[in-house]
């Protein structure tokens, strides 16, 4: 059983007009096996939370703590956080020209485990994970995310999730840009990872549709850099009907 604790997290970014605070005190605890859905309007800071947990250098943590089983995550380099068991499925996965998927996957797996995976089983694992996600085998020889369609990039993120077996996954709008079939396939991948590794997850989404496939234990409403409400699955349905107006001070369109 693992625990990811986020305590009163404040994050700012540098802009041309000076520092701008994006996260204004986020607190959230996720335990192994739990799924926490985060829903909130555009620009409220959801991706910022995800990137700050992963350690993106553009985001400065100005206050608060992130602890993984009591260990200070903020003290770790980006790669150390991944090695400690955190995985971020990015809203916009990055293209890395000239680096093949298969080389990348093996290199990452080696770094995560501290030893290279056994050639035989690894090749088989990769192939069956790709089959499960209905990805053509040609993706293994293509360069990381290069020329992948939006949906293909999201599948490739979940492929990594299944192969790397993290303790906690942060899924930043993994459902955006997926067609109906892809949504089902990708959700099944997340559910498999959750079951086989007792993974905990933070699922950032704008739509309740994915929550039909991936059942959240908690739903949190994220507005203006903070969690402003929490509840069960029913909260998502209410948001779908009412939007975020009740949570926003001014009635800015979401």
């Amino acid at each position, binding site marked *: 059983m693992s625990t990811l604790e986020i305590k009163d997290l404040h994050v700012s970014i540098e802009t041309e007009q000076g520092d701008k605070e994006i996260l204004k005190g986020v607190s959230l605890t996720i335990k192994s096996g739990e799924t926490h859905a985060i829903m909130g309007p555009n620009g409220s800071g959801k991706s910022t939370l995800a990137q700050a947990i*992963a*350690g*993106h*250098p553009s985001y400065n943590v100005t206050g608060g703590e992130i602890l993984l089983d009591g260990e200070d995550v903020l003290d770790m*380099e*980006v*790669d150390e*956080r*991944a*090695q400690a068991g955190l995985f*971020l499925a*990015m809203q916009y*996965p*990055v*293209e*890395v*020209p*000239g*680096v093949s998927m298969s*080389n*990348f996957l093996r*290199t*990452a797996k080696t*770094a*995560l485990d501290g030893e290279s995976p056994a050639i035989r089983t690894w090749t088989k694992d990769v192939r069956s994970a790709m089959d499960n996600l209905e990805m053509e085998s040609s993706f293994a020889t293509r*360069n*990381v995310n*290069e020329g992948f369609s939006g949906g293909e990039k999201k599948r490739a993120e979940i492929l*990594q999730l299944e192969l*790397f077996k993290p303790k906690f996954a942060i899924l930043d709008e993994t459902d955006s840009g997926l067609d109906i079939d892809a949504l089902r396939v990708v959700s099944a991948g997340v559910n498999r990872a959750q079951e086989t590794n007792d993974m905990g997850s933070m699922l950032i989404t704008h739509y309740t549709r994915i929550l039909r496939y991936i059942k959240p234990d908690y739903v949190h409403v994220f507005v203006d850099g903070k969690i402003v409400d929490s509840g069960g699955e029913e909260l998502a349905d209410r948001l779908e009907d009412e939007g975020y107006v009740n949570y926003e001070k001014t009635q800015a369109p979401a």
Partner: protein
Amino acid sequence: MANTDATTLDEGPDLLIPGMGEEGETLVVQQAENQPVEDEETKYGTSRADRKTSFNLADFPVLTGEEEDWRFTPLHRLANLHLPEGDEKLLTGAAPAVSVTEHDGVSIETVARDDQRLGSFMVPDDRTSAIAWNSFSEATVVTVADNVNIEEPITISVEGNSTDPAAQHIHVAVGANSRVNLVINQTGKAVVSQNVEFAVGEGATANVTSLQAWDDETIHVGSQQASLGKDSTFKHVVITYGGSLVRLTPITRFAGEGATTNMYGLYFADAGQHMEHRIFIDHSTNNCTSDALYKGALQGKGARSVWVGDVLIRGNTSGTNSFEKNENLLLSEGAQADSIPNLEIETGIIDSGGHASSVGRFDEQQLFYLMARGIPEPLARKLIVRGFLNEIIQKIGIEDVEAAVTEVMEEEIADLEL
């Protein structure tokens, strides 16, 4: 439509690499005004069409360093290959030794300078090329018969053994409808001005890789000029990593219609190395296609690269497709890359044309992505450099050469202080 972009990044904040991993800017011109457009930099700005070509050395005055095509070259490092004192004393040192692998259908000759074939497919277009033309004593002529298919690469080994300023001439003719792989492997120590001419016969396919793997002290200025017959295909891959100063001017001219040229290059400049590549693609006939891609990695104080991509689409042509791109990766402080794509379109009826150019440091997003997957920073940086260089290595298309270049680049990367 003329475009001249120069990007120089010496020191300063980390920059992303614009356009890396993306399609370069594509410029599609349809039925544009049928008039030549002049280069915007009037100081240097004559059209490439006006560049003098001549076998006569007197047509190329002693260099001042102000000339458009010499302004980036440190003349004091040319060890007199440019004859700064005047034209009286030509280059007399012993040229690097040439040996060529034997194949059925290929004749190899050493000929005197008055052999009629020499100079039939090239004309010098700068002073050092003209000096080399007027200085060499013997030339190597490699002739591939018509209608042969030679899979095994024809390898021309050029091995330097002296630093007396020398001149060299190599002539390669590929017969009609033949297909060949050809490698020029330049090693050893030399101070040499070199002309290489390629004739690609009608319907022929020539896949050429020129490796500049010289010793540290070598100074090499060279012109490699190709003349492409009707419906022929010419691939020219330049790999430069050895030598103190290397300045190459690869040129493709179209003798017939319907031909394709792919001009690729990779340079890896370490501390103190000057690597300059100036390509020229002269679209003077109809329905020809050109694609140029050069990539450079620079590391260490005083590592210096210059890339100039002159593409001229002449006014009397139609059906041209042309794209050129140059990307540079600065791996440390104190390295400098200049990149100048220069696409001149004199006609209104091209199919497509475009150019792109970039000079930058690591893409922080790529670095973050790899590290977020657990890959430690030094390894992530190496992966990115390797990926960057691979794109060119994969284009060589000759398995052994690709493997050898990969190995060399792995050594360069292993030495990186990232």
